[in-house]
Every structure is written in structure tokens, then in C-alpha cells.
């Protein structure tokens, strides 16, 4: 309990930092005034219209990716699973490419629906392919990898064939929180809230699923239903996150691992921990990206990859030594 309170406190500090740090440091007092007593000054506008939506986007995207990663790892019983593996990100990306290239949709609020739809279709496709002759976590993961690869090559082909209209896609695909504004954030809130509730409710069932399908069934768990609900949670969470910020790697993979290290194997604790820890990491990465490359910004997707890749390798190595 104490550790959970600590994590919440850390998250609060990071949120405040995210509002204060930028091209110019704006102190917490001034930030508070900008949010409560808006005067329309430059710093008020920077806080209110740039840093606030960006910070809220970081919270939403982080919570969504962390949770969906935890659910994925729980339901596939594959510690290396993340939202990418069920084809969620690849499906969202293909749909966004189609939105830009075929339908000329250039606003992020337009992408959201395509990203969600693409994520859903891809996930269903993965499930249908993986379900042939009985579902197993491994088959599901393999089907996800295969369909991700297929969709990824479609995306690459489309972007290579039409460089000019897909220029913006090339920037979106890196992953950034600074694309978010109030409208997009507001649109995303209900989706993320729904996904969070659904994912957290699944905690106990995921614990039973961890015992293996047969034992879980014997204990009265409706395995198929749990899988469908988990898939729905992942699609909604990762699809929305992808639409807001573009694909951001490693977060959904690494954060649940860290959570597991801290709180043990109980999904009822891993899930909320992942939900709180991922935004901490994401916002910190975003803050770092804002200051290291001035006057430019490093996109948060790049920073998380830079931080995440070594972390991921460390985790894999650790696991391997443990298995030996």
C-alpha cells in the first residue's frame, strides 16, 4: 500500500514537471495561476493550450499502453507480448495510412476512428487465424506476428508509393505527444476510461488464466469470454493511444515487466501498477525529449525507444538466466 502511494506521488510530481518544463521554465505557482485564473498571457497560453493537453495525453496514452501491455501479457501468458503483438498497432497504422492516402483525412480527430477500426479488424483477424484448431497463447502470438508483418509491409509499400501525401504519416509514425490538443484529448477520454474499467475488472480472471486453460476452466473461468473481453480492452486502449500519439514502442512491453518485478505475479496488482507506472515513464521521456535537443524536440517515441531498448534487452537477459 505504501509503495502504491509512493507511485501515485511520483506520478503527481511528474505531471507537475510536465507542466513546468519546456522552452522556458514556468514555475508551479505560475502554472497554477494559468490553470485557475487564465489571463491570456503568453505563458498562460503555453501552459493551457500546449503543455496541459500534452500532459493529459501523456497520462491517457501511458495508462492505456501500460494497461494494454499488462492485459496482453496476462492473456497470452507470454511475458514478451505487447500491444504490437496482436496486430493492434499494425492494424491502426494501416488504417491511418488509408485515411490519409485514400480518403484525404488529415486531421487527428479523423485518424482516431480509423486507428480504432484498423486495430479491431486486425485483432479479430489475428484471433480467427490463431483460433484454427483451438486457441493457444503461442498460436495467437504467432498469428499476431505474422499479420503484423503483413500489415507492416502494406504500410511500407503505401508510404513508398505515395511519398508526398504520406509525408505527415512519416512523422506521425514516430510517436509524439505534441500532436494532441484539447479536442483530441477530450475525444479520447471516454475510450480510455472504458478500456481501463474493463481491463481492471479482468484482473482476477487473468490470474486464473495464468494457471493454464484447463485448470482455469476447471475453476469455472469462461476462457473464451475472458479472451474476447481482454482483446476488446487491448483494442480500445492501444487503438486510442495509437491514434493520439502514433505508435510508441516498448512501453506496453517493459512497464508490466517492471510492475511484475515490484508487486509479484498477481494481475490484480500488476494491472493498476502498469497503469500508473507507464505514464510516469512516458511523461519523463517526453520531458527529456523537450529539453535535450533544443530548439527542436525529440519525439517521445524516439526517447522511449532509446530508454526502452536497453531495458528490454536487460529484461530478456535476466529472464534467460533465470530459466537456465
Amino acid at each position, binding site marked *: 500500500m505504501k509503495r502504491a502511494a509512493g507511485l501515485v506521488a511520483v506520478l503527481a510530481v511528474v505531471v507537475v514537471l510536465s507542466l513546468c518544463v519546456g*522552452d522556458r521554465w514556468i514555475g508551479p505557482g505560475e502554472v497554477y495561476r494559468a490553470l485557475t485564473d487564465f489571463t491570456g498571457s503568453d505563458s498562460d497560453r503555453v501552459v*493551457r493550450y500546449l503543455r496541459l493537453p500534452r500532459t493529459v495525453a501523456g497520462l491517457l496514452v501511458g495508462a492505456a499502453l501500460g494497461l494494454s501491455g499488462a492485459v496482453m501479457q496476462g492473456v497470452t501468458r507470454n511475458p514478451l507480448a505487447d500491444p504490437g503483438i496482436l496486430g493492434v498497432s499494425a492494424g491502426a497504422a494501416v488504417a491511418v495510412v488509408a485515411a490519409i492516402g485514400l480518403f484525404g483525412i488529415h486531421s487527428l480527430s479523423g485518424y482516431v476512428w480509423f486507428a480504432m477500426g484498423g486495430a479491431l479488424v486486425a485483432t479479430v483477424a489475428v484471433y480467427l487465424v490463431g483460433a484454427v484448431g483451438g486457441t493457444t497463447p503461442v498460436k495467437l502470438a504467432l498469428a499476431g506476428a505474422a499479420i503484423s508483418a503483413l500489415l507492416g509491409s502494406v504500410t511500407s509499400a503505401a508510404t513508398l508509393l505515395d511519398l508526398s501525401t504520406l509525408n505527415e504519416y512519416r512523422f506521425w509514425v514516430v510517436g509524439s505527444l505534441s500532436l494532441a490538443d484539447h479536442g483530441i484529448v477530450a475525444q479520447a477520454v471516454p475510450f480510455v476510461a472504458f478500456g481501463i474499467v474493463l481491463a481492471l475488472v479482468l484482473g482476477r480472471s487473468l490470474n486464473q488464466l495464468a494457471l493454464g486453460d484447463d485448470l482455469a476452466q476447471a475453476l469455472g473461468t469462461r476462457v473464451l469470454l475472458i479472451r474476447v473481453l481482454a482483446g476488446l480492452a487491448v483494442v480500445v486502449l492501444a487503438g486510442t493511444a495509437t491514434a493520439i500519439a502514433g505508435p510508441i514502442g516498448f512501453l506496453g512491453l517493459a512497464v508490466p515487466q517492471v510492475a511484475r518485478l515490484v508487486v509479484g505475479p498477481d494481475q490484480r496488482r500488476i494491472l493498476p501498477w502498469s497503469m500508473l507506472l507507464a505514464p510516469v515513464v512516458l511523461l519523463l521521456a517526453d520531458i527529456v525529449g523537450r529539453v535535450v535537443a533544443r*530548439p527542436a524536440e525529440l519525439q517521445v517515441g524516439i526517447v522511449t525507444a532509446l530508454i526502452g531498448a536497453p531495458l528490454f534487452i536487460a529484461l530478456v537477459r535476466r529472464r534467460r538466466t533465470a530459466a537456465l
Partner: protein
Amino acid sequence: MAVVRVLAVALSLSLLAGCAPSAAESPGATTVKNCGIDVSVDGPPKRVFAAYQPAIELAHALGISDRLVGTAYLDSQVLPEYTAAQSKAKYFKNLPSREELLSLNPDFVLSGFNDVFSAAGSDASFGSRKGLADLGVQTWIFSPLCPTADGKGDEAIDPATVSMDNVYADLRDLGRLFGVEDRAAQVIADQKRRIAAVSDAVKDAPRPTVAIIRPGLEGGGMTVSGGPDFGTVLIRQAGGVNAFADLTSKRNVKISVEEFIKRDPDYVLISGCCDASLTPAASQPDVNKILANPAFANLKAVRSKHVVPWLFANHSAGVRGAYTTENLGHILHPDLGRVW
């Protein structure tokens, strides 16, 4: 028989000599230096490929439109005076691949952008200039875009080389290579006269700061034209100052939105790109977006509605220099615009 054999040997030897890449220059060769690379032709090139807007407009300006075997990747509509010539040219929407290019059998490639010859180009690359020369294809880049080494791209431009004088020198050199020296001299004279008219008219006027920004590329901030971009020269000629001239790492510099707000430029030009049918009007939605964004409401350019739909093509180094200087003169100094 012996005579035939001697003739055959002599013939094949001369053919071989002809094929040997720049081993020994033939007496009729014309050689000029472009970005530190010798460009040598035995006679005016007959099969020219022009990549990117500035190169395509240059070819039309020099009157060699009928020698174009292909044109690729326009950033916008060509200037009205070249519309007819361009409509007759073979056009590739995207850059052709190296193989596609070579299959057109060009003897000369004119490029309006250096990345096409870079080893790791942002778009498809034709290969390094030396590599193409080895295949008998001479190449050209506008010298204000000279990378510091062959095979390098945009990041390797020396800002000191970015000037209209370099464009004039290029025109003179190309006039020699293509055997159209008089036409080149005319083009230069016309450019100089028109630019001087604008610069003279605005020389005592206040100098507003101008930001050229690229829409749609704002992931992680926004992209503005920095010091090495030709826009810096054109803005100066039209009586303004590039608000980001001090950022000299690249032509297109990524900055944070907060940095943009801090600089608070007097004018914001939206650099619309890239489609052969594009006009400035296509950037109007991006203009509206900036005007409506509450984060930008305090900017001088926003309050005075000086956010202008514009073209990427306008601030590329080339024969658009005079046109753009006049155009910018009208935008920045509308009250003086009757002079030119």
C-alpha cells in the same frame, strides 16, 4: 581484307576511347565545376532529366524543354510562363528509381535538391554524382544547395554559399554546357533587374521578421526554414528578416512550438508542398488552423492576420528568385508594391 581489319580495330579502339569515362578529355569538351565536381560534356547534352521544381523550371527558362527525357516531383504548379512547355514533358509524380532513371538513357541529370544524390537520401536516391558520372551521366545541383561532400544531403550545406550570385554563376555555367549562353545571360539580366527593383523600393522600409513553416510535419514540434534555406536570401531581398536565420544546422529545422511562440514573427508563410497541381490556396486550411489555435492567439502575425498561404517551390534556389522576391515584396510591403 587487311584494310578492313585495320579499320575494324581502329573503329573499336575509338569506340572504346569514347566509352572510357573521362579518361582523356576530347578537344571539344566543355568542363565546369559544380559543387566541387567537374562536369564535362563533349557537346550540349541532348537527353536531360530534371528532378524537382527548381531544375524543371530552370530547364524551361534556358529553353531546353525539348531536350527533357523526363521530369519528376513538382512541388507546385510551374510558373505560368512554363506551363505550356511542362505540359509536353514526360512527368513522374514521384522520383523514378535509379533503374527507371537509367532506362531513360539520360546524358544529364539536373536536380533541384541535393538529397537525390545522397548516399542516404530522404527519398529514393539516384546514387552519388560520381557513381552516375562513371555511367556517363553528368549531374548538376544548384550550387546554393552544395553539400560539402559528394553523397551528402541537405545537412551538409554551407550557409555562406546560399546566394543569388551562385544561381547566376550556375546559369552561366549551364549556358556554356548546354550551348545556350545568350539565353542564360538574358535570364540572369532579367532576374537581376527585377530583384533590384524590389530591393531598391524597400530599402528604407522597416524590416519585419518572417517565418517560413512547413505544415503537416509538426510531429514533435514544427519545421521552419533556417539560415541555409534560400528563403533567407529571398526574404532579405524583399525587405524582411528570416526569424530563424540564426539556426544554421539545416535548411529545414525542427523547433518546438514553444520556441515558435517565443520568436513571435511578424509574418508566417505556410510552405505548401508537394503536388504538380498545387497552388498557394491549398495551404488555406493550415492558415485557418494557425489563426484558430488559441495557443497562437498572442502572436503578432496572428493578430494582424499575417499568416499567408504560400509555396515550398517559392523558396527553392533557382529561377524563381525574381518571382518570389516580387511576391514577398508585395506581402511584406504592400504599400510599396506599385513600384515593381
